[in-house]
């Protein structure tokens, strides 16, 4: 039959055409990201396993020096400085994420209780500050928390800080900055979850359970978990790698992993050490994403978790 002979030509022609189309449309961007992000990241990974040269630039031979230094082993024996930085990063991430959740929950819920035509405007009000550059926002907090400002004076008179120290620079200022920076990232997904809330179920729960707290816990909270999870991904992961806020608000004792990494490429110059720190950050990021995905799948609300 002529059929069997003709099939491959017509089909393969279409296949070739489609594949050429795919390459034409996707290749420029894919190649761009590959050359300007995948290759650089791979290069950075490589740098982590090289030796630090005299000007902070990487050199052969390959070694694990950078990772030893990251763990605190130096010329003068072991020092806990880097480890403290790492623990501080984890701690700040944890505390700021929890605080963001505590603030975002009522805020998101409040927006859902408002009239429908106001909601987009209220959401916009929450988001607009984050449109301004993060350096400027951090600068605003520097102004607010510096020694001599009303807030600092108040804290001094309450004995919360030593006289003339001000509230900044401090770990407290960093936490505040992080919460400020990431609040909208939690409010938005939580708001989306609240908006989808099954009100019938909530009302049934209000009848079933004596206290509003229990009604909340049993009917509302489980339904907002996917939003909470999405928000946590959007807050915790970038918070762990934050550079600007600890640099401006934290001072020497508020350093986080991002600053440790950045400093190796700017001031003190030890590229392999910085690269090793970057690898650590990447590992944490991917563990975080992976964990959230797993939990998200178990919750069944996989689509809410965008990543």
């Amino acid at each position, binding site marked *: 039959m*002529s*059929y069997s002979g*003709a*099939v491959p030509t*017509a*089909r393969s022609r*279409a296949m070739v055409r489609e594949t050429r189309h795919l390459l034409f449309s996707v290749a420029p961007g894919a190649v761009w990201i590959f050359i300007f992000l995948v290759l650089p990241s791979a290069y950075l990974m490589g740098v982590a396993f090289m030796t630090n040269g005299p000007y902070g630039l990487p050199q052969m031979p390959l070694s694990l020096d950078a990772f030893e230094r990251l763990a605190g082993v130096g010329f003068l024996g072991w020092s806990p400085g880097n480890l403290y930085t790492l623990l501080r990063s984890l701690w700040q991430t944890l505390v700021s994420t929890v605080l963001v959740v505590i603030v975002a929950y009522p805020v998101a819920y409040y927006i859902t209780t408002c009239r429908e035509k106001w909601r987009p405007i209220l959401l916009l009000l929450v988001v607009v500050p984050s449109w301004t550059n993060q350096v400027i926002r951090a600068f605003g907090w520097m102004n607010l928390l510096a020694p001599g400002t009303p807030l600092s004076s108040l804290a001094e008179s309450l004995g919360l800080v030593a006289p003339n120290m001000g509230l900044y620079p401090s770990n407290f200022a960093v936490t505040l900055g992080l919460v400020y920076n990431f609040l909208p990232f939690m409010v938005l997904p939580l708001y989306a979850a609240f908006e989808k809330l099954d009100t019938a179920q909530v009302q049934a729960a209000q009848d079933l359970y004596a206290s509003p707290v229990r009604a909340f816990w049993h009917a509302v909270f489980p339904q907002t978990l996917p939003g909470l999870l999405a928000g946590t991904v959007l807050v915790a992961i970038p918070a762990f790698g934050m550079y600007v806020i600890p640099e401006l608000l934290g001072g020497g004792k508020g350093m986080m992993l991002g600053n440790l990494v950045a400093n190796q490429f700017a001031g003190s110059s030890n590229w392999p050490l910085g690269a090793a720190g970057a690898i650590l950050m990447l590992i944490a990021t991917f563990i975080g994403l992976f964990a959230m995905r797993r939990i998200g799948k178990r919750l069944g609300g996989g689509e809410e978790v965008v990543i």
Partner: protein
Amino acid sequence: MSETMTAETADHPGARPAANARGRANHKASSIEMQGLHKRFGRDTVALDGVDLNIRAGEFFTLLGPSGCGKTTLLRILAGLEEPDAGSLVVGGKDITETPPHQRSVNTVFQSYALFPHLSVRENLAFGLKMRGMPAAERHSKVDEIADFIKLGDLIDRHVDQLSGGQRQRIALARALICEPDVLLLDEPLSALDAGLRSQLQVELLRVQKRLGMTFVFVTHDQQEAMVMSDRIAVLNGGTIQQVGAPRDVYERPVNAFVAHFMGHDNLYPISARKSDRLITALGELTAEEAGDGELLLIRPETLDLLPGAVEGPNHLTATVAERLYRGSHAEFRLAIADTTLQATVNNRGRHLPEVGETVTVVVAPEDLVTLSE
């Protein structure tokens, strides 16, 4: 049946003389020849398995079949939206098997209507003309002309998302017609509409086709719709054509069990033995005239007569009423005969309608019996 329908619509009082179509009638109807069309999707989904089909110029031709029978694939091949794996397609004497859709003088009314959401109704209508490079002034008058012809009225100035389903359907039809294609393809254009609107638009569509004399290829899974609209019908199943013919042929003389079932026939009986024109089935012995030599006997319910009580006679079968569905204009009976059942439809002429449990005699006319193959 379809002949009468056609005559009626052409003489419809609302139909204005052909002059109003401004010389559109019979403008350039084209015939279609399809030969050996094959199409597979993926490894093993066969959509078309060797389709040979000729459609005459100016014909209202319907592709009828259940979903997955290949009718839509065939339509898409006509439109150029799908390329056949093998076979050829000739429209108006020109082989267009490999012509891309935008170079074919073929237009489609899509099932979802596919009106462009970023354009107004007027811009939607003018889209095809604009793509063909027609100057704006000419486009404008063409749009007015078609709007007048399809009676769009003030819909023309609306926005697409302000239109109802029936309105969208008419805009989609006008958008395809305005290009004056050799062939117009319609992919279940009425399936999304409710029953009343649907039959109204069926009549309207038919009227438009007759007035323009354009070749229409219509796809549907609704055999009633196919019979009302078509000059000829092709029944498809499993990627092959089962039967091609006028609605009466297909309905009254289906060639096989599939076509018979699809046209709504249930009274099919395997023939266990035959002596010249005498056929033995589970119902008993029946004499048939020109029944053909198929192995299944088809008895159409509406050809049967019911007599009260048991009456002896040639082609008379004694039965008991097992079920009666009273439908006003007619009644449907399920009759128990021997170990099997027979459906009968009787017009309600005000005479006695047998009750359930009553014994009746079924009179089968020899000339109404048809045999067909499995």
